[in-house]
C-alpha cells in the first residue's frame, strides 16, 4: 500500500555553527557575541570562574549559595523588587553554580536587551547579600537535601559520586553541599567568596541572538563596567577514586518496586586527547537509543524503561556511569548484562554498522543542537570553560567522522576499567542481596537511607 522502496536522502545542505566575535574589554572581561537573526530574542549568559570545585573544604555548597544569592538585593533594591523589575521586562534571570563555573543568564525580547542588561549589571555588581535571604536560601537547600532521601534517582546519583571519589575530593560531595556543610555557611562566607572570585578577569559574557557585536559590546561594557578587575583565586582539584577494586553498595529501600542502578568508575577530563573516540565508543555502548546497553536491557529483556551510559564531562575527571532503573526481581540479571556489555566492547571491535550509526548520528544531529539562543550561548561558554579553541565547533563534525573501529576499541581498552567498576543500588536489599552476591561484583556493603 505504501511505497516499498525506501527514500534516499537528498544532497545535504551546508551548515555552519553561528559566527561569533571574541574580545577582551579594558576591564579584563571577555566578551563573546554571536549575532543570530532568527527570532527577536537575545540570551545573555555570564560565566564566572567561581564554580563548586572552588568551595573550601568543609564549606561545600558555598559557590552555589553565593551564585544563588547574587540576585537577592542591592543597596538600592530588595531581592523581591529586583525580581519584579526583571519579570516586568518578560525575563526571568537565573543564577547558579555548576562544577566548573558560576552563571547568570537571561533571555529577553531584543528590544528590551539594553534595559535588562543594565538591570543585570546593577544587580550583580554590588550585591548586598541580606542575612535573611542567605538563611532562606540555605533552608531551601536543606529542604532539597531532605527531599533526596525519598527520591531514588537523585539519591543513587549522589551516593554513586560519594562511593566513587576519595572522601577528600570535591566531587565526592554534592555540588550544592551536604546538610552539614550548608548549615555551617554564613553571610560572611558568601561575601568573602564573592570578593575573591567575582572579578572581570574571571568572567566571560556571551551574548547570542538578534543583536550586533557593536550593540552587545556597548550594552555589556555599561552593564558590567563596575566589576573589579583582577582574577579570582584557584584551587587544585583532587579527583582520585575512593577504591581501585570493585565494590557494591546497596542503599536499602524496603519493598521498592524497582532498583535504581549506577555502575561505573572515575572517567576522563573534558579536554582529553581521546575525547572524540571515547564519545563515539560511549554512543555505541550506551549513549543512543540503539546502543548495546539500551537494546539489551529494554528491547531484548524488557527489564527497564531505559538504560544509558555517559561520561560526565568536567574540567577534572567526572564519572563514567551506566544508569538505569529495573524491576526489582531482575536486578542481578540486569547487572550481569551491564558488566557483560562493558567487557564485550573492550574485547572485540564494534561492527562498521555500529560505528556508522554513532558517527552519522553525532555528525548529523549537530545543527539540531544549536537551534536556540540559549543553546548557542551555552556552547560558546563551553569553549571558554574548557579552553576548546575558537574553531572547535567548525571542526567537530570532521573529528567525529574520522573515528574508526580501531579508535573505538582503543578508547574502550584505555578508558573502561571493568576491574574497578563501582556498583550502587537503591532498592530492596532483602530481595536482591543474595542474587547480586552470586555475581561476584565485589564486596557488598548495606546502608540505611
Amino acid at each position, binding site marked *: *500500500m*505504501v*511505497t*516499498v522502496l525506501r*527514500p534516499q*536522502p*537528498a*544532497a545535504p*545542505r*551546508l551548515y555552519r555553527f553561528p559566527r561569533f566575535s571574541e574580545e577582551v574589554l579594558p576591564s579584563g572581561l571577555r566578551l563573546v557575541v554571536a549575532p543570530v*537573526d*532568527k527570532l*527577536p*530574542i537575545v540570551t545573555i549568559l555570564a560565566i564566572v570562574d567561581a564554580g563548586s570545585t572552588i568551595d573550601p573544604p568543609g564549606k561545600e555548597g558555598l559557590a552555589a549559595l553565593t551564585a544563588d544569592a547574587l540576585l537577592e538585593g542591592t543597596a538600592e533594591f530588595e*531581592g*523581591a523588587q529586583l*525580581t*519584579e523589575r526583571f*519579570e*516586568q*521586562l*518578560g*525575563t*526571568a534571570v537565573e543564577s547558579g553554580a555548576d562544577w566548573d563555573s558560576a552563571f547568570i543568564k537571561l*533571555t*529577553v*525580547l*531584543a528590544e*528590551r536587551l539594553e534595559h535588562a542588561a543594565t538591570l543585570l549589571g546593577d544587580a550583580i555588581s554590588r550585591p548586598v547579600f541580606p542575612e535573611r535571604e542567605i538563611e532562606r536560601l540555605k*533552608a531551601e537547600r*536543606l*529542604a532539597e537535601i*531532605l*527531599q*533526596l532521601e*525519598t527520591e531514588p534517582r537523585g539519591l543513587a546519583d549522589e551516593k554513586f559520586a560519594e562511593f566513587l571519589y576519595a572522601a577528600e575530593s570535591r566531587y565526592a560531595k554534592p555540588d550544592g553541599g551536604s546538610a552539614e556543610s550548608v548549615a555551617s555557611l554564613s553571610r560572611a562566607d558568601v561575601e568573602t567568596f564573592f570578593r575573591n572570585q567575582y572579578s572581570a578577569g574571571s568572567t566571560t559574557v556571551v551574548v547570542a541572538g538578534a543583536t550586533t557585536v557593536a550593540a552587545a559590546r556597548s550594552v555589556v561594557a555599561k552593564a558590567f563596567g563596575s566589576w573589579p578587575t583582577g582574577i579570582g583565586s584557584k584551587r587544585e582539584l583532587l579527583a582520585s577514586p575512593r577504591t581501585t577494586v570493585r565494590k557494591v553498595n546497596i542503599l536499602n529501600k524496603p519493598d*521498592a*518496586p*524497582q532498583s*535504581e542502578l549506577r555502575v561505573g568508575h572515575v572517567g576522563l577530563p573534558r579536554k582529553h586527547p581521546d575525547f572524540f573516540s571515547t564519545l563515539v565508543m560511549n554512543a555505541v555502548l550506551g549513549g*543512543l*537509543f*540503539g546502543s548495546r546497553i539500551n537494546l539489551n536491557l529494554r*528491547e*531484548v*529483556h*524488557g*527489564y527497564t*524503561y531505559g538504560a544509558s551510559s555517559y561520561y560526565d564531562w568536567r574540567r577534572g575527571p567526572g564519572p563514567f556511569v551506566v544508569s538505569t*532503573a529495573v*524491576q526489582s526481581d531482575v536486578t542481578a540479571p540486569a547487572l550481569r548484562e551491564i558488566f557483560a556489555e562493558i567487557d564485550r566492547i573492550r574485547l572485540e571491535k564494534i561492527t562498521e554498522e555500529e560505528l556508522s*550509526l554513532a558517527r*552519522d*548520528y553525532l555528525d*548529523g*544531529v549537530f*545543527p*539540531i543542537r544549536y*537551534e*536556540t539562543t540559549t543553546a548557542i550561548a551555552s556552547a560558546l561558554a563551553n569553549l571558554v570553560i574548557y579552553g576548546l579553541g575558537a574553531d572547535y565547533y567548525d571542526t567537530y563534525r570532521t573529528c567525529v567522522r574520522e573515528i574508526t573501529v580501531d579508535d573505538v576499541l582503543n578508547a574502550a581498552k584505555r578508558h573502561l576499567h571493568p576491574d574497578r567498576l563501582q556498583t550502587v543500588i537503591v532498592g530492596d536489599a532483602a530481595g536482591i542481596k543474595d542474587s547480586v552476591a552470586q555475581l561476584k561484583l565485589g564486596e557488598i556493603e548495606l546502608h540505611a537511607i
Partner: protein
Amino acid sequence: MTLHGGQFTTMRIPVETYELDNGLFVTLSEDHTAPIVAVNLWYHVGSVNERVGRTGFAHLFEHMLFQGSAHVGANEHFELIQRAGGTLNGSTWLERTNYFETVPSHQLALALWLEADRMGDLLPAMTQEKLDTQRDVVKNERRWAVDNQPYGTMLEKLQELVFPVTHPFHHSLIGSIEDLSEASLDDIAQFFATYYTPDNAVLSIAGDFEPVEARRFVSEYFGPVPRGKGKPPLPPMNLPRVFGNPLREVVYDDVSLSRLFLAFRSPVFGTREYYAASVASAVLGLRKGSRLHRSLVRDRQIASEAACYTFDLAKGSDLLVVDVTARPEISPTQLEDETEREIDLIYRQGVAAADVNRAVALIETDLISSLQQAGERADRLSMFATYFRNPDLINDQVASYRAVTADRVNALISERFGPDNRASLIYVPRNGVEQEPMLAAAVSAD
C-alpha cells in the same frame, strides 16, 4: 498594558494548510534559517478513548508504533532516524498521541515515509513477543515514573479526585499493571483500525523544505492510506463550571515534604476565558516574582517551592493547579491553611494590572523562545490543527495574551476561585509526622 507602548516586533510564522482526499490534514511552515526540518503527527486519540478494563492502552499502543511496520523492522524507525542525524519520540496524553522527528532537511523524505508506513501498514509487524516485551517496558515506566517516584501518583490521583467516575478524564493515563497485563493483539488491531487513520490525524512539517517537493512526498506516501470508518463518540464530557463542594484527599506516602496540589475547574483550552485563566495561573505561580512564590516562599517561608499551571485540556473542563511544597518544619495542615488563605485573599481582592503585565510579558518571551525550535513549532501547529482545525492560531497567541486585562483575570478569579471550586490533593510524609486528627478524619471525595 504593554511596557514599551507597542514597540514589539511582529512575529509571524508562515502557515499553509491543505487536506488529502483520505482526510489527512497537512500544515506546512517554512523557515530556511538552518538545514533542519521537523515532521510531527498528532493522532486525535488518547486515554479518553480507552475502554473499561484497558487503562493505559493508548500509551502502550504508542510504544508498539516503534516496533516496526510492514517495511520497517522492530526499532528500525529509531535507528534510521538516528542514523540520519535526527531526533525522535512520541508521547501520549489524555486527548492526543503525538509522534515526531527533527532531521537534517535532506532527510525529510525518510521521516515522512516512516510515519506513513506505520500509519498505513502497521499490523503485519505486530507479534505477541513484541507486545509482551513492550508491556514489560511500560510496566517499568510506570514503576519508574509513578510508583517509585515521590508524588509520582499525583496525576492519576488528581484525575480520580476531580473528574466523575464516568468521565473519560477520570482514569489513569499510564494505566494499571492489571489492565496492561490484559491487553492483547486483538486490542492492537482494533485500536489501530479505529483511531490510527489519516482522517483522525494531522501532519505538520516545519523548517527547511521546498513546499512543492514536500507536497509530493506527502501525496506519494500518505495518499494511498485509506480513510477510516469513523470512531465511536465519546461519552458526554461537559462539566459544571465549579465542583460544587470542596473535594479533598490525603495521601500518606514515601515523601520527605508535604506537598499540596490545589486544583480548580477552569475554562477549556483555546477559549477567550482560557487566556484569562492562563494569565491568572502565571500571576499566581510562574517564576519567582509570582504571588505565591513571593508570599509563601520568600516572605513567609512556609514553602520551599510554589508554582501554578493549567493542564490545557480542550474538552469538558480544564484544570488549574496550584502546586506548593512545604518547608520541613511546616505541617500539612499549616501548608493547606496558609495556601488557602493566600487564594482567599486573591479571591477577595483580585489582582492588579502590574501582576498581569508581569505574567503576560513572561508568557510572551517563553512563547517566542520556544518557537525557535522547528520541532516545537511543528508540535504547536499540530495542536491547533487537531483541536481547532486552525494551525494559524499559532500566530494569534501573543495577541490573545496581550488582550487579557486585569478585569478579565479578576472576572475569572471571582467565578472560579471560590470555596465551591477547590479540590485538595495533599501528600503527607508517611514517616515522622504525627497523623493530625483533621487529616486522619479526612474522607476522599468520590
